């Protein structure tokens, strides 16, 4: 493969300086980046390995009641942290529905946020792809695009962001802490990923050298713990990206929804927060009708980008189901098949086997 430099900085400041150079890329667990390098999709000149940086692998409970997750915490460690899973059950469920156990053990939180799209034309160096090579065209637009975006896409790019983790995070107002050349700053997760517009090659709000150091969930996010679910429809039972997914979180008091959170995955170039749809649920009873209306509102602007109109209908149904599941209450234990429509039966099947 292409020869590249490999550096292992000792401090965050060194890392930022090393990665600010053109052609540099951060290497976390590499479960996405190394695949891209093997396929010739990413060809960095320098890898800045951040996995040995100190202090980025902690899950901290903050004084204000929130939680701070270091960028190097593994997907598995976070999902299996009992306190975290109890406080943010939809996040844990989303994490556990992603990839495979081996990948989750390796993959980091920071890498998960910044994983690249699974658009097949992006991965195929022989295809035209505006994201891979700005201005070259988009072979997905008239190609095999059954799994592509139905929201927020442009003629220049119809790719989706594939992360499960990000979907409940965006619903729960997560904040991303970034260390850059000009010091530390933070942005809402909702601002991290960009819609394609005319510049699909610019995927995030990060500048060269920017290192994600942590993700924070505010104290308020814990208020949804009793009614929070993630639901993910896949082409096989496990180890598949979402065709469409949804995170739903409710606060219910005296039979009425006080506050609702809703986000969709697999539908856009970013985890899709459905704010207008959330408004439908304020101060209403958690009924099937209300959830139906919410679903319609969430997908009002949706349009197929190709052979994928079914995703719009599927998304509506997933929204209704996710909200119903959330209203029914977070189960005491995460099911054997997290986030699966078959979650409830699977345990029994495996117990018998």
């Amino acid at each position, binding site marked *: *493969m292409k020869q590249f430099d490999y550096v292992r900085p000792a401090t965050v400041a060194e890392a930022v300086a090393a990665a600010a150079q053109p052609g540099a890329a951060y290497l976390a667990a590499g479960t996405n980046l190394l695949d891209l390098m093997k396929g010739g999709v990413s060809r960095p000149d320098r890898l800045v390995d951040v996995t040995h940086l100190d202090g980025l692998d902690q899950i901290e409970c903050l004084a204000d009641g929130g939680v701070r997750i270091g960028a190097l915490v593994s997907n598995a460690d976070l999902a299996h942290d009992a306190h975290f899973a109890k406080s943010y059950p939809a996040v844990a469920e989303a994490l556990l529905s992603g990839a495979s156990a081996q990948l989750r053990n390796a993959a980091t939180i920071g890498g998960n946020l910044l994983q690249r799209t699974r658009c097949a034309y992006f991965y195929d160096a022989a295809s035209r792809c505006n994201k891979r090579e700005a201005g070259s065209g988009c072979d997905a637009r008239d190609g095999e695009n059954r799994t592509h975006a139905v929201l927020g896409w442009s003629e220049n790019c119809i790719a989706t962001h594939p992360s499960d983790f990000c979907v409940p995070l965006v619903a729960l107002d997560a904040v991303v802490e970034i260390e850059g050349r000009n010091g530390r700053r933070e942005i809402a997760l909702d601002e991290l990923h960009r819609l394609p517009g005319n510049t699909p090659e610019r995927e995030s709000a990060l500048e060269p050298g920017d290192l994600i150091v942590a993700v924070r969930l505010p104290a308020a996010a814990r208020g949804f713990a009793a009614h929070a679910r993630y639901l993910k429809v896949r082409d096989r039972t496990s180890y598949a990206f979402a065709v469409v997914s949804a995170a739903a979180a409710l606060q219910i008091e005296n039979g009425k929804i006080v506050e609702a959170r809703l986000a969709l995955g697999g539908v856009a170039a970013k985890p899709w927060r459905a704010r207008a749809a959330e408004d439908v649920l304020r101060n209403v009873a958690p009924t099937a009708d209300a959830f139906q209306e919410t679903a319609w509102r969430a997908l009002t602007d949706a349009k197929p980008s190709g052979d994928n109109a079914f995703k719009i209908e599927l998304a509506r149904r997933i929204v209704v189901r996710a909200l119903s599941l959330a209203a029914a209450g977070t189960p005491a234990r995460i099911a054997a098949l997290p986030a699966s429509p078959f979650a409830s039966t699977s345990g029994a099947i495996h117990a018998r086997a």
Partner: protein
Amino acid sequence: MPELNLTSAPAHLRHGSNIGQPLTRRDGVLKVRGQATYAADNHPPGMLFAVMAVASIARGRVTSLDVAAARRHPGVVDVMTSDHKPELAIDPEIKTNPFVFRMEVLQSNEVRYANQPIAVVIAETLEAATEGAALLAPRYETLPALVGLDAGESFVPPVVGVGNPTENHRGDVEAGLAAAEKQIDAIYETPPQYHNAMEPHAIVASWNGDSLQIDMPTQGLMLSLARVAELFGIAHDKIHIRSPFLGGGFGSKGLMAGPPVLGIMAAKLVGKPVKLVLRREQMYGPVGHRAPTRQRLRIGADGEGRLTALDHHARTVSSTFDDFYEPAADASHTLYAAPAIRTSHDAVRVNTGTPLFMRAPGEATGSIALESAIDEMAWACGIDPLAFRLKNYAEVEPITGKPFSSKALRACYEQGAARFGWAKRPLQPRQMRDDDGLLVGWGMGTATFPALMFQAEARAVLRRDGSGAMEIGAHDMGQGAWTALAQIAADELGLDIDRVEFKAGSSDLPDAGIAGGSAHTATAGAAIHSAGAAVIAKLADLAANDERSPLFGAGNAGVIARDGRLIRRDDESRGEGYSEILARADVAEVEARGTGAPNPAAMEEYAMHAHGAVFAEVKVDPELGQVRVTRMVGAFAAGRIVNPRMVQSQLFGGMIWGMSFALHEEAITDRRSGRVMNANLGEYHIPVNADVPPLDAIMVEEHDPHVNALGIKGVGEIGITGSAGAVANAVWHATGVRVRRFPIRIEELLTKL
């Protein structure tokens, strides 16, 4: 080859004979310890690494390669191209026999499919070779790619599969359809699929003068050797191929393909040993695949639900430069007793690598369509699918009228249905729900696969120390040949399995034919059987002609070999150990050869097939359309079972592959470029553990006196057939929605639920 430390199951698991015992894999410990040497694990001194550059277009011509850039890359030793390569002894386009397929070994700059090799970079490290290949930055003259089942004019190929007639008929199908009370006319589509063996195709080739040492996974040692010999113009005895283990083949490692030939050429070019291993995505092109099909089934039945006609037409594709046609419609020849049957095929040419044998080629594709159609017909007649199949049970092979050599299918239906609880199935679809409100459906399919035999030879030895040896160039693709064939050898030699040195997996052993067509155990087993009998006969001769032996005068036919002793058949108290016989005769060992081959007379007289019945339960989310198989029961009758543990694992594997066929597997081809867009195991879906429910495979007792001396039918491929249809039919029964395009996707169900 490093010594194989094969283990055997503890003795208490065996009761006298070896055949029929569930021994664990004798190569199992080696494999879990990582000590089993697969081809790519070999590193002869001085070995270099070769990496193929492959075409990113499906049709056209390579106009330039930046060879200089690749050569400049540190570590790159040479770049093999169509202008710079060792010459072959014959043109690779020449088909010298029906088992020779055309291959791309840089004979020209023409590109005929995506992922075709266009150059090979040889370097000191894998990394340098990989980057060298990337630096070639090929340029092309691109022509529009021919893609899909409607790519061009269709034509009727001269034969399908391996020499099967393209069309077959018996009776008058049109008259049968016209007379039918109920008819169905339905079109089913199956996608291209790729073998995706876990172990990629790999070769380590070393030349020493004009002799050639090869490590390469192959399902056909001698066929491969013969092809290498003719391509490189060297004598057979100058070539040695080792293939002790395969990480799966499924038909893709049966015949010599282009990439390993390129490895041998590269070794010749640089004069050093070379290793060439395909990358996963490079397996989607030059090493075969299962072609897509579009199948039309027209079926008629009378008022009683008895078939009046069965018409099965299959459209498929082949490459633009060679011929292999998936014989999908032939699946309708053997199962259902329609008085009129017609099967036919046509094809179009597309820009793909030539499709080839892939686990149950034709049988699997045909089965899912036929079993779906039979289910549709049963429903049209208002009859339970099992009752319908029993009503149309074929007592003789429908297409030929021949009797079956054996057929325990009725018992398969009975035992499978009983285990599954089929009797409780409501006739109407969409009647069952589980406690969580998921739709539940039950479906079934009939499984069938021909019982084939090829040619094989074996060499048996009995030694003075009381041990024996059996040598046969057999292939263990993971199916368990190291174990099952050794069990047969032990019985034939009358020895405990631990006393038999069983040798396989190397081309310097007697020719075991090909591990394909589910015929390897039967074929190699027959050769072992006859070699064993011959060596025992020699030993018996020694004893019977020696007046000092208690067996003196027993005559050849009069002894039994058991526990390392020969015993008089008419008086079991009189016997003698092998060691004593050999010691007295003062010979170190006796040896004999034997062959296994099909019996043309029996084949003329009988139809020979394995059979089975598969029952599946699926659950479908009524709003979201996601499907999950929750239970599968198969009952299979395949003659004599040599090792029930290995057989069960073959049947499970087949059943899982059937489920995969119905619900998951599909190579997604870009309709413009002809490139496979999901050429990796992340996106080319096969079932994962969570998709696979508890499986049950019943081995139904069947005695077949005609198929071969040991009464063995194959079990490698039958499991896919029947299973795919059973799952598809269960989806219909759960939902009331009939999906005729496979794999069944969420969107096909979603809006119709």
